């Protein structure tokens, strides 16, 4: 099959348009939306199985596919409009690069997803992997204004727009956040930016988990104005005990005031990190998600965080845990078998908690699915949405088991 695919792709796109990845899968990396559309159209006509890849640093590159469509050559930062707090970037652009360029203009994309700093923005959107900053800035979908999407059969669609407020048409852009690429290849994104805050301070406390989570509840109750309030497990933070990290951003006076208030509300002593140490903490926590082969997230109400962390530990090892003490999103990384994952998903579903598999080796992804334990009617809707976006079922995305 590979030879036939290689020959056909060369015939269509030219002799240099295709290479083979480490697993011997033919791979194209078009540098335009039209190029992606052409590749998807061809794959659809030929009934090939297609795997979408970004910069290759997050999900293992191991899905069986006749053709890999990579967004790595779609890395232009098309527009930065600081006055409008908007940027247009191609999906293969690395978040670290994008934010570096944005900071030169005094704006930023308030994302701190798990994984490598050079993860592509398309990957972050497709997997909906928000990090600790979701506490203030919300899930990934809340940062999306519009996109360009190539559907499974090569249609190019452009839902949404470039302005921060927009209700024209159905919100297909937000559907792309966390869709794991099941609806097509995102090639370009219009993103909502924020102005760089004048002050950005991180405070940490190290203590037993129950002490920290109780403190986090008190802080939330007192409406501490934080950008992130994240609990890290001892293994993740490389500390003897759990760590509660508090990130305060805004104008100087406000940050100072909130830091004093946080101290007054808690019995332990907060330690302020230097900018370098703070950066190391947040980046280290993000990178930690790559140190196990399985990462999943659970959507828990803030009151249920402790109980849910225990629930996971009952069925798998303690892993590396990062939990949004205010947002209620728990991320676990480690090693787990299919049986363990199934047991956790079942137990979580019984508590109204969805489990989303963010990354795992292909056999686990395929057998377990990114999603599962659908509620009545949801599976049918998802299947029909996939038929609509990818009528030839070329996209190899194990959305559900």
């Amino acid at each position: 099959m590979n030879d036939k695919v290689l020959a056909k792709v060369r015939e269509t796109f030219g002799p240099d348009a295709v290479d083979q990845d480490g697993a011997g899968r033919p791979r194209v990396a078009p540098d335009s939306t039209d190029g992606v559309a052409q590749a998807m159209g061809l794959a659809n006509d030929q009934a090939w199985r297609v795997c979408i890849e970004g910069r290759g640093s997050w999900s293992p590159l191991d899905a069986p596919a006749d053709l890999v469509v990579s967004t790595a050559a779609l890395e232009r930062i098309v527009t930065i409009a600081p006055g409008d707090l908007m940027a247009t970037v191609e999906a293969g652009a690395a978040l670290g690069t994008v934010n570096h360029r944005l900071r030169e203009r005094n704006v930023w994309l308030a994302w701190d997803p798990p994984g490598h700093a050079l993860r592509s923005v398309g990957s972050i959107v497709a997997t909906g992997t928000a990090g600790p900053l979701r506490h203030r800035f919300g899930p990934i979908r809340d940062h999306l204004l519009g996109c360009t999407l190539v559907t499974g059969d090569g249609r190019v669609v452009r839902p949404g727009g470039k302005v921060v407020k927009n209700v024209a048409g159905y919100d297909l852009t937000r559907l792309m956040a966390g869709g794991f690429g099941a609806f097509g290849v995102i090639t370009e994104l219009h993103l909502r930016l924020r102005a760089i805050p004048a002050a950005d301070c991180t405070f940490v406390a190290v203590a037993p988990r129950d002490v920290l989570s109780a403190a986090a509840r008190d802080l939330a109750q007192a409406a501490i104005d934080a950008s992130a309030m994240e609990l890290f497990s001892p293994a993740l933070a490389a500390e003897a005990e759990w760590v509660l990290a508090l990130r305060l951003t805004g104008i100087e006076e406000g940050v100072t005031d909130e830091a004093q208030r946080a101290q007054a509300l808690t019995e332990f002593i907060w330690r302020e990190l230097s900018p370098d140490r703070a950066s190391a903490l947040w980046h280290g926590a993000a990178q930690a998600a790559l140190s196990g082969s399985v990462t999943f997230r659970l959507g828990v109400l803030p009151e249920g965080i402790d109980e849910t962390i225990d629930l996971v530990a009952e069925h798998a090892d303690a892993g590396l845990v990062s939990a949004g003490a205010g947002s209620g999103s728990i991320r676990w990384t480690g090693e787990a078998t299919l049986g363990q994952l199934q047991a956790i998903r079942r137990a979580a579903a019984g508590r109204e908690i969805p489990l989303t598999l963010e990354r795992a080796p292909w056999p686990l992804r395929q057998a377990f699915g990114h999603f599962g334990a659908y509620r009545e009617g949801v599976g049918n809707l998802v299947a029909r949405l996939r038929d609509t976006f990818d009528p030839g079922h070329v996209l190899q995305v194990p959305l559900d088991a």
Partner: protein
Amino acid sequence: MSRPDLADALGRIVGPKWVRQAAAELAPFRADGLPTHEATPRVAVLPGSRDEVIEIVRLLAREGVPFVARGAGTGLSGGALAESHAVLLVLTRLNHIKRIDVPNRRAIVEPGVVNARLSEATAPYGLYYAPDPSSQSACTLGGNIAENAGGPHCLKYGVTTNHVVELEIVRADGSVTRLGSPQGEAWGPDLVALFVGSEGMFGVATEITLRLEPIPLETRTLLAAFDSVRAASEAVSRIIASGIVPAALEMMDGPCVRAVEDSIYAAGYPRDAAAVLLVDLDGRPTAVAAETRTVSRILEEHRATEIRSAATPAERARLWQGRKKAFGAMGRLTRDLIVQDAVVPRSTLPDVIDKIYEIGRRHQVMIVNVFHAGDGNLHPNLCYDRTDLALAERVFAAGREIIQVCVAAGGSISGEHGIGTDKLEFMPLIFDQATLDLMCDVRGVFDPDGRANPGKVIPVRACREWRAGGFR
């Protein structure tokens, strides 16, 4: 099924007194907040419970009858109008706040709960529901979901879609599905995000779980007057660029200020101002005080001719009164008013406003601007009289041109009012055929027969489904 038979069947579900079929009974349901469109439904039915909604939708599915869900009918895009073949499903009796979960900051409500009532109910717990459309004392949360409603305070806290975590929906075939989760993480792809703003075409939300916010400890309001809209707009851009996110950042132009000052809602605004900005800063007292200093300095640097500041609820209410009552005040100027809704990139505001004035002059139409400047969401108000047909024609032409100008500036045809029936013709200005076709297909996933709120959002001629044989 004939109208009387249908009314009888509906009456058996909800009780005869909750079914309206006589012309006089249907009159209140002929229009929503948009003055230019009217339609009389076949029957209006007012269910009293979720179970009755489900039973009604199943009956209509069996009979192949289209339906339109409606809340308070305050929408401004003709989205809640039902044509003579459709049943109007009025949800105002489903008005129970079912649960307030204080520690997790969630509220579970029925769709007919009035927006402002939710914040009243949660206030004793120090919580409120942030999206605050101007019609919040009347509009329902179900309608807010359908339209993805906004409001002045969405600049800092986000619009409806940012606050909905879970929905129970009834699709047109009568099937019941729960989307999202109490925390907000989806069970699968994010169907809550897809449902919000679908203008009632994907089904009816029968139970809504919303995220609440803590009531800010302090709110300060600044009012600044300017000699030109351009100077005011530049001040807006500078405030946003400073990193401060005001809770609200609203602009009224000179004609609006004078309309307010000439009315019983006079708020003491400077009558000679070309533009007035209202800025709300909220949060912790220390931060609010510091932000107030920074914003005041920016306003001065941008040549504000006058700056007032208010911190007590009574003083703040007085500064806001003119803004909140602006639409009422304009009632003195004109018999009818079209409240346009479009969005432009913030940086283009001064040029776009100039063009809007030019369009008004050319068409001899009075245009008054009052809008959400912080997010570039314009509301040009076009004054007219529906009995003056020539004027009405000019108003429609001016409205079309305004939309075209906003689209050309890189904007959108609606920021918060929705497409409904009013803006169908403009959809091809911002979406190409492939995108419109896909939207049409996605609607078919939820409602293959196209019976839920038919004829809205996607222009029928642009729809592949229609071209292939028409909506049934």
